[in-house]
């Protein structure tokens, strides 16, 4: 009578499929069923159903010693197979627990239209979606800039609503707390510049011009670029993660419904803090870079600190000094706006906040380098 049997597992778990004389298919479960042993194959039952479709399928669980989810899943699978073939299923003598759980699993019918069909749309659709996505992103960015400009107007008129305490906290985080890393990077960059210059200039006996090289490079380019990249990495990403998390926890919604524009309350203090602190950090970085160059000159070359200092003073002009500071102000604004924009437009999941922080850094660095390139061209044309 037995048609097919799955070999007994470790604990004697067994599924046998048989037929009664009236054509009823009997699925016999026996032994101890443990989820850790996996599920038994459904194929024997499927084959029996396909070979000679019965009117009724009944379970026989007299030999069932112990059961857990694995048995329930198996019974449910068999029931689904029968349903698809319009065959009646009788619980037979399944334990009450299994019957109750199956009843529970079927208590809530599947919502119509809930199931997803996983089909890949044709390439033209995807291209269109992509293009619409870009358009939305551009619209968001322009909208954000417009909002920021309006908010800045309110700030200038003294009508923006934000807490002075928040501003001070951001000032500290974006200023004083950034000093150690800016110190380290600036001294090293100054030393590297001096080292590279020294190797070349020594061949012409022009070691003293290392001072000019370091001073001009630091003040015009490296000081503001390096601080900007550091701040994009540590502060811009922080802004994005913080605002992104506030979005996930609906804190931004709470501000909106209270009639406080998030732009005033969250973005302006950050923008203000970073555009105040970036020029200061830039000056600090310039000075330390020059000191770093001095260390290399004094150590490797026959240039005394006094000579180095005098040469530096000669090479530096107030104009290049202010150029660097001006650029750092622009970079500060770019970093703050990018960080806040990415945060406010972040998705609402943990990974979306991570993406927001990442893209804040990437976008800021791209913008910084592009802006620096534009500055170089413009200054060149203007002859500054």
């Amino acid at each position, binding site marked *: 009578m037995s048609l097919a049997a799955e070999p007994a597992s470790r604990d004697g778990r067994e599924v046998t499929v048989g037929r009664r004389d009236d054509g009823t298919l009997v699925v016999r479960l026996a032994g101890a069923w443990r989820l*850790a042993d996996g599920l038994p194959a459904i194929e024997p039952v499927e084959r029996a159903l396909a070979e000679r479709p019965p009117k009724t399928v009944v379970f026989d669980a007299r030999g069932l010693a112990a059961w857990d989810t694995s048995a329930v899943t198996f019974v449910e699978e068999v029931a689904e197979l029968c349903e698809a073939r319009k065959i009646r299923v009788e619980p037979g003598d399944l334990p009450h627990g299994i019957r109750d759980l199956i009843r529970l699993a079927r208590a809530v019918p599947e919502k119509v239209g809930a199931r997803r069909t996983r089909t890949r749309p044709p390439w033209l659709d995807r291209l269109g979606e992509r293009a619409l996505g870009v358009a939305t992103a551009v619209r968001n960015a322009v909208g954000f800039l417009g909002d920021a400009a309006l908010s800045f107007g309110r700030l200038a008129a003294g009508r923006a609503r934000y807490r002075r305490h928040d501003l001070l906290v951001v000032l500290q985080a974006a200023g004083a707390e950034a000093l150690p890393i800016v110190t380290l990077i600036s001294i090293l960059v100054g030393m590297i510049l001096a080292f590279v210059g020294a190797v070349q200039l020594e061949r012409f006996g022009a070691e003293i011009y290392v001072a000019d090289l370091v001073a001009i490079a630091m003040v015009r380019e490296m000081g503001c670029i390096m601080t900007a990249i550091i701040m994009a990495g540590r502060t811009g990403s922080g802004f994005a993660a913080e605002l992104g998390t506030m979005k996930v926890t609906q804190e931004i919604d709470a501000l909106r419904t209270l009639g406080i524009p998030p732009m005033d309350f969250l973005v302006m203090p950050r923008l203000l803090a970073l555009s105040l602190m970036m020029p200061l950090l830039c000056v600090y970085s310039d000075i330390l870079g020059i000191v770093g160059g001095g260390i290399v000159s004094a150590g490797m070359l026959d240039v005394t600190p006094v000579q180095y200092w005098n040469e530096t003073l000669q090479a530096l002009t107030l104009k290049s000094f202010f150029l660097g500071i001006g650029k750092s102000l622009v970079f500060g604004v770019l970093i703050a706006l990018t960080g806040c924009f990415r945060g406010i437009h972040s998705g609402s999941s943990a990974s979306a906040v991570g993406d927001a922080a990442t893209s804040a850094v990437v976008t800021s660095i791209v913008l910084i380098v592009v802006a620096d390139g534009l500055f170089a061209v413009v200054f060149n044309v203007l002859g500054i």
Partner: protein
Amino acid sequence: MATNGAGHITVKDLTMAFGSYVVMQDLNFHVREKSIFVIMGGSGSGKSTLLRHMLGLIEPAKGSVWYRDVNFTAADPTGRERLLRRVGVLYQAGALWSSMTLAENVGLPLGEYTSLSPREIREVAKLKLALVGLRGFEDYYPSEISGGMQKRAGLARAMALDPEILFFDEPSAGLDPISSRLLDDLIKELRDSLGTTIVVVTHELASIFAIGDDSIFLDPESKTAIAHGPPKELRAHSTDPRVRRFLTRGEEVAMERPHG
């Protein structure tokens, strides 16, 4: 006082503190096998903190938690992990992993701790989701479904490995009365059909009376448990005005103290 082996979970002389601030002290109770144990008390009485202590997420300032006759508090990380594998937890907000679909959320513990094939994992995940009324939502991400559904999906994940013990942190918070009732039925069903021991942290009176086999009442003022027993019995026989006030929503007993 509870002795070893008397219950599935035994809490002995537990004192919970954050630094020098004591939340609760001298807690002693045990949770019987295959019963539903309710930890109740007003907001801020340290119910969830007690749950986190029982799960080893916070270390007790004093005392210990025992699972059967194993001292969980004194166990090393591997021993704790072994014990926790038999435990499922439903967190307050569901705590689903947002970068995974519901089926993947439920399937992760199955993939980690069983030898099931991906197809089998999917079958089991489908069944667990059907049990909580989420048939057909396997491929949704947590952010695409409602809060109540997230909670139910969290329950499906907690049940994935057929745990011996299930912890529920405020299961009915944020659910409408009908969903909350259905969840209560489900909790009872799990105790009856799978023989799961269940610990529920809640302050929902309807739930407490509907499902609780046994309970303790935490009082934030005396910083300890002031009542212990089946909730219905406490409502009928407790003489403590604080307990009576809580269990009757403050309607029956006149206030004796301003912050009772």
